[in-house]
C-alpha cells in the first residue's frame, strides 16, 4: 500500500466515510428500490408541461370565454412537433372548470377560436401575418423559434444547455390584453419588441 504523510491520513479518515456513504447508500438503495416510473424527459413532453403551466399562470380578459366551463382551445399551427404527446398530457386535465381542446391548424385557417396558439417553426416565414390576424385578440401566442418573441410572439420557448427556457414579450402580452402572473415573469427572459414593430 502507498505511503501517506500524517496529514493525508487525517484527510483520508475524513473522506472515506463520505465516499463510502455515497457508494454504499447508492448500492443499498439500488438493491431495495422499487420499480417506479422512470422519468423520461424529452423536449416536447417538457414543452407540453410548460404550456400547461402557462395556461395556469396567464389571465385571460373577461369575456374571452363564453362560459365558466368553456374549454381552453390550444391551436397548433404548422408542422406539429408534439405528435400525440400534448393530447395525452392534457387529456383529463383541467384548470378551474376548463378542459383542454387541441386543434391542428394550417396556415390560412381561421385562428380566432384559439385561446392559446402554438406557432411551429414551419410558420416562421409568415409569423407577422399570423400575428396581424390575431391583433387585439386575447390569444396567447407561443413559439419555439429564435427571434419569435422579438418579432411579436408573446412567449417563445428556447432550448439552452439541454434545458427549456422561455422569453416573454410584454408589449405583445399587453396588446393581447393578457395578464401574465409575476411568478411566470420571474422565470422569464423579458424581450423587448424590436423597434421596427413598435407602433
Amino acid at each position, binding site marked *: 500500500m502507498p505511503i501517506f504523510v500524517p496529514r493525508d491520513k487525517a484527510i483520508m479518515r475524513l473522506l472515506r466515510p463520505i465516499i463510502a456513504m455515497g*457508494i454504499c447508500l*447508492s448500492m443499498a438503495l439500488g438493491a431495495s428500490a422499487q420499480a417506479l*416510473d422512470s422519468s423520461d424527459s424529452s423536449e416536447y413532453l417538457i414543452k407540453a408541461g410548460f404550456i400547461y403551466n402557462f395556461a395556469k399562470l396567464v389571465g385571460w380578459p373577461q369575456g374571452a370565454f363564453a362560459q365558466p366551463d368553456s374549454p381552453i382551445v390550444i391551436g397548433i399551427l404548422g408542422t406539429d412537433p408534439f405528435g400525440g404527446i400534448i393530447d395525452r398530457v392534457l387529456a383529463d386535465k383541467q384548470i378551474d372548470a376548463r378542459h383542454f381542446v387541441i386543434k391542428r391548424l394550417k396556415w390560412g385557417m381561421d385562428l380566432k377560436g384559439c385561446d392559446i396558439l402554438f406557432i411551429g417553426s414551419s410558420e416562421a416565414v409568415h409569423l407577422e401575418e399570423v400575428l396581424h390576424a390575431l391583433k387585439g385578440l386575447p390569444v396567447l401566442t407561443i413559439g419555439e423559434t429564435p427571434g419569435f418573441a422579438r418579432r411579436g410572439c408573446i412567449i417563445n420557448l428556447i432550448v439552452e444547455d439541454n434545458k427549456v427556457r422561455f422569453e416573454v414579450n410584454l408589449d405583445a402580452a399587453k396588446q393581447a390584453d393578457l395578464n401574465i402572473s409575476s411568478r411566470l415573469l420571474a422565470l422569464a427572459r423579458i424581450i423587448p419588441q424590436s423597434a421596427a414593430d413598435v407602433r
Partner: protein
Amino acid sequence: MSSIRKNNTSLMASAGRIFLLGMLTVCPPGNVSASGPSGPDNPQNVPDVTSMSLEDLMNLQVTSVSKRTQKVGDAAAAVFVITQEDIRRSGAASIPDALRMVPGLEVARIDENKWAIGARGFNGRFDNKLLVLIDGRSVYTPLFSGVYWNVQDVVLEDVDRIEVIRGPGATLWGANAVDGVINIITKSAKATQGGLVTAEAGSEERTAESVRYGGKIGDNTYYRVYGKYFDWYPSIDATGATASDGWHALRSGFRVDSNATTANSFTVQGDIYHDNFGETLTVPSLTSPTFSSTYPNNGYNTGGDLLGRWNHTFSRSSTSLQMYYDRTNIADPTVFGDHESVYDIDFQHDIHLGESQELVWGLGYRSIQDSNGSSFTVALLPNHSSLNQYSAFVQDEVSLLNNRMHITVGSKFEHNPFTGFEFEPNVRVLGTLTKQQSVWAAVSRAVRTPALTEEGLQLNAAIIPPGTAPLNSPLPVVEAIFGSPLFQSEDLLAYEVGYRVQATSSFSLDLAAFYNNYTNLRSAEPGAPILGGGPIPSYVILPFVASNKMGGGTYGIEPFAEWKILPRWKILGSYSFLRMNIRKNADSLDPTPDIPNGASPRNQFYFRSSLDLPKHLEQDLIVRYVDQLPSLNIPSYYSLDLHVGWKPLPQLQLSFGGTDLLNKQHLEFIPEFINTLPTEVRRTFYGGISWTF
C-alpha cells in the same frame, strides 16, 4: 472506418436504435416527437409534467439525463456520456480533465502539455489501444498508434457531449478501437447561434480566452467561427523549482451545417492551430562525460483539418458520406520532427429491414503520408512513408421477443500494409428484463495494428558507460529500442457483461464487468549487438526489438450510480476495479519484469455532489481516488475539487473553483520511452467568465 453516422449519433451505430434523444441537437425539432421505444409515446412511462412547476420543468434535461440513465440503458456496451453540464460543473479546463470522471478510464497528467490516457489498463503517454474521434475525425496518429493529446482541443462550451465506450469498438470503428473509443461531439452550428466570449485565469492556467460567433446564411444554413487562445504557466519539479513545461496555443476554426432539403444535410468544418510547448528532456549522449544530457527543450506543433459530410435520408434507409483531411506537424528541434497527412473517406448505409431488423454496412479508405526528421535519440526509417488502408464492415441488429431482446452481429474487415488482412467480429445481446432493468453481454475481437514506429524505429534509450559491470565493454553501450517489420498486430478477445437499473425516478445504477484476453502483445526482445559510429566503431548498440511475445488477461468491474436526492441535489459516483495479469511468453527474453497492473491503478473512485442553489448558483464537489501505479512507484492519491458557478444574468456565467485542494503537489505519472521530466500537479485556483450575446 465509418464515423459518419457515428458522429451525429455515434452510439446508435454501436447499439442500434438507441440514442434517439441524442439526436435532438442535430435534427430539426419536427423530427423529434417520436421519442423512442421507452419514450413518452408509451403512456405508462410518461411522468406527469402537469404536476410539475415551471421551476421543475426548467430543471429537466432535454437530452443529457435521458441519454445517460435511460437511453444508455439500451446499449449493449459499457457507455458513459459526459454532457456539457458535466463539463461546466466539473470545472474542467481541458478535454483530459473532463475525461477524469469516466469510470474505467485512466487519466494522468505527465507535465503541463502531456497526458497518459487509457481505458482498462496499459496506460501510457503512448497508449495505443484507445481510439479518439472529434466530430467523426479520428485523431489517432499512425506514428505511435496513440493520440497527441496536446494538439486536440475544442471550445469546451461548444461541446455537445463526449461519449466514451469502454471495451472494443472495432467492429464499427476498426483496428485500434481495442480498449475503448472516445467520441468528442461538438454542437451543431444551429445550436451555437450568437456570440460567446469566455475568459479564464488561474494560478496554473495563466489565461485562456475563447470567442465564438454563430449566424445564419439563408433559411437552412447555419455557421459558427471560433478562436481560442491559452497560456499555461510552467509547473514545478519535485524540488519545487519552476519547470520548463510552459505551454501556449492558438486555435481557430469553423463549422457550417445545412439542412438543404429534408432529405439532405451537409456539414463542413475545419480547424487550424499552432502551439508552443516546453519540457525538460534527458537524452543519451556520446559526447557528454555522463553519457546523458538534460536540457529544457522547446518545440511547437502546427496543424489543421477539414471535414465534409453529407447525410441523405431515403424512406427506409439513410446514407452518409464523409471525407476529411488532417495535417499534423510536430517540430521538436532536438529529438524528432514529424509531418503527417491523413486523407480519409467513409461511406455508410443504414437499412431498416422490416420492423425488427436494421442492417448497417460501410466502406472506408484512408491514406497516410508521413515524413520525419531524425536525431541521435530517435530515428524512424523510412523517412517518408505512404500507407493505404481499406476497410469494410457490416452489422445487423435483430429485435426479438416483442422488442425485449436485441442481438447485434457484425464484423469489420480491413487491410493495412503491415499485417495485411484483419477482421474484427462481435456479437452483442441486450435483454430488457423490465422497463427499468436491462442486461447485456458481448464477445468481440479487436486488433491493434502496428504503428510506423513499431516497424522502423530506432530509439536510443540510454547509454551504459564503458567498463560498467557486468558487460565491461571497452566502448559505450547504447541500449536501443528497435521496430521490426516482423511485428504483428496485437490481438484481443473481450468478454463483457453489464446490468442497468433505473431503480426509481431518481436513482440509477450501471454496472459493467469485463474479461479481456490479449495475445501477441508487444515485448522488446534483445538482439545481437551491433557496432555503431562509422567505419571505426565508437559505440556498441544493444538492440531490443519489438516483438509479440507477451499476453495475458485483464479483468475488472465498473459500477456507476447517480442519485437525485432532491430536485436540486444530485450525487453520482463510480468505482473502477482493474486487475491485469500480463506476462511475457515462455520464449521471451525481454528483461522488463512482469509487474501486475503495470502503470495502471487497480482501484479508482469518483464522487461528485452537484447542488443547485437559489439565485442561479450551482456548487459542485468532486472527490477522486487513484490507486498507486505499481511499475512507476507512484503512490495513490486523493483529490478534491470545488466548483461554484453563478449565472446572475441569462447571458453571463461566472465560475470559481479550486482543483487538487488536498495536495500541495504530487506526481501522477512517469512517461515511457522518451525521458521527459514529469512535473508535479499542484493545488490550483481559477476563475472564469463567459458572456453570450
